[in-house]
């Protein structure tokens, strides 16, 4: 049976892994290669790297990090942040990324998703959606690290991205991100039920039950978390065993 995935997320800036609260207040969490290797040993199913302060100036840094990680860690790697054109996708894939995630640039230029998916295949195109609840059962897409409202409905936007060729949706609740109060399960369920491509739930994990709820109640295909793993609160292996005990299919080492 296809296992549900646990994906530790490494926010990277200036070559280091950091963790923020509600997209601000960054704290240093360590060396990317070292952390990636540790998560691989713990049984992480994939790793996601988000270049959270990506600019053309430091583009080379994340490429270098991905090259270093990909030479030592043999699980799928997703990279996002600052992807503006199809050539960026090519560069990241060449550096060793398996999937490339787009967020603000997909909103600014949806054609980019179509072009990238048709050039490199849907399997490597992830669209990241940062969403904030604006009314009961309604969420709006935000961009630029959560600073800019778009007026787009998150569920409709996810459907459109699937139509344009996205292979996966990385769905972050901005209301929950960094709060440790659990995923926004309404948002997760709403998007997962609306589309036929996998959904990764993100934003708000405070404990292991939150991860299990994302799968069981949110119907996510994968769950992403950062701080509970970075600061040693839980290992990935502990999380997987906990979820397996709740009847969730997991790849246990």
């Amino acid at each position, binding site marked *: *049976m*296809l*296992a*549900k*995935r646990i994906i530790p997320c490494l926010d990277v800036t200036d070559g280091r892994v950091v963790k923020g609260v509600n997209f601000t207040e960054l704290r240093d969490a360590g060396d990317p290669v070292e952390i990636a290797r540790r998560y*691989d040993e713990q049984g992480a*199913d994939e790793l996601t790297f988000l270049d959270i302060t990506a600019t053309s100036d430091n583009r080379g840094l994340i490429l270098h990090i991905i090259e270093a990680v*990909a*030479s030592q860690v*043999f*699980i*799928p790697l997703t990279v996002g942040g600052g992807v503006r054109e199809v050539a960026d996708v090519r560069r990241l*894939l*060449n*550096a*060793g990324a*398996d999937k490339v995630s787009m967020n603000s640039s997909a909103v600014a230029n949806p054609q980019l998703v179509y072009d990238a998916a048709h*050039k*490199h*295949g*849907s*399997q*490597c195109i992830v669209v990241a959606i940062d969403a904030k609840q604006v009314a009961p059962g309604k969420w709006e897409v935000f961009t630029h690290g959560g600073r800019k409202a778009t007026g787009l409905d998150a569920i409709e936007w996810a459907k459109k991205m699937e139509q344009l060729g996205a*292979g*996966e949706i990385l769905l972050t609740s901005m209301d929950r991100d960094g709060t440790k109060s659990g995923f926004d399960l309404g948002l997760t369920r709403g998007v*997962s*039920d609306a589309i*036929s*491509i*996998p*959904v990764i739930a993100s934003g708000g994990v405070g404990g292991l039950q939150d991860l299990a709820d994302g*799968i*069981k109640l949110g*119907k996510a*295909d*994968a769950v992403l978390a950062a701080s509970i793993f970075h600061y040693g609160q839980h290992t990935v292996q502990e999380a997987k065993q906990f979820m397996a005990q709740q009847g*969730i299919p997991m*790849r246990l*080492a």
Partner: protein
Amino acid sequence: MNKIVVVDYGMGNLRSVAQALRAVAPEADVVISGEVADIESADRIVLPGQGAMPDCMRSLRESGVQDALLAASRSKPLMGVCIGEQMLFERSEEGHAAGLGLLPGEVVRFQLDGMLQEDGSRFKVPQMGWNQVQQSAAHPMWQDIPDNSYFYFVHSYFARPSVAEHTVGVTVYGAPFSCAVARDNIFATQFHPEKSAAAGLQLYKNFVHWSP
């Protein structure tokens, strides 16, 4: 010297495949190449592939290595991965593309619309993630890999061999499908061993030492 050529025809995650081979066979000469001379002088060949099969087949034809690859496939150990597996077959539903025809059969798409998984969630296509591989037939390439190990999959299409004996691995996603095939000196997988942690590295290690 064991020279392993990862065929470069402009499609696929060649670097990951080469790095996995180097990790398990530091003594081997692992070369990423789209040169006919390299394919002719190779001891073993890995054919990767990513994206859409029609694009992969077109790139393979236009790269000029198709004939050398077909010649090598008659005798040298050849490992196909993902679209590199699908291309070994006669044809694909995807864009009605013709394949290399090294294995009889066709490549078809998952038909899981409206079907629900056991937990009530939708079957997603592509199948993306780790799934178990049942070793449906014994094969030297399975050495030291526990039956039902998890491997990493990312795909919307899969091969349906017309000769049942060519299937050596089966995975269930909605229904059982053939995820590993073999004939003589050819072995190929739908999943990505280079992204499948220890089990995947063991498979590449077995390939490096395989004497069909």
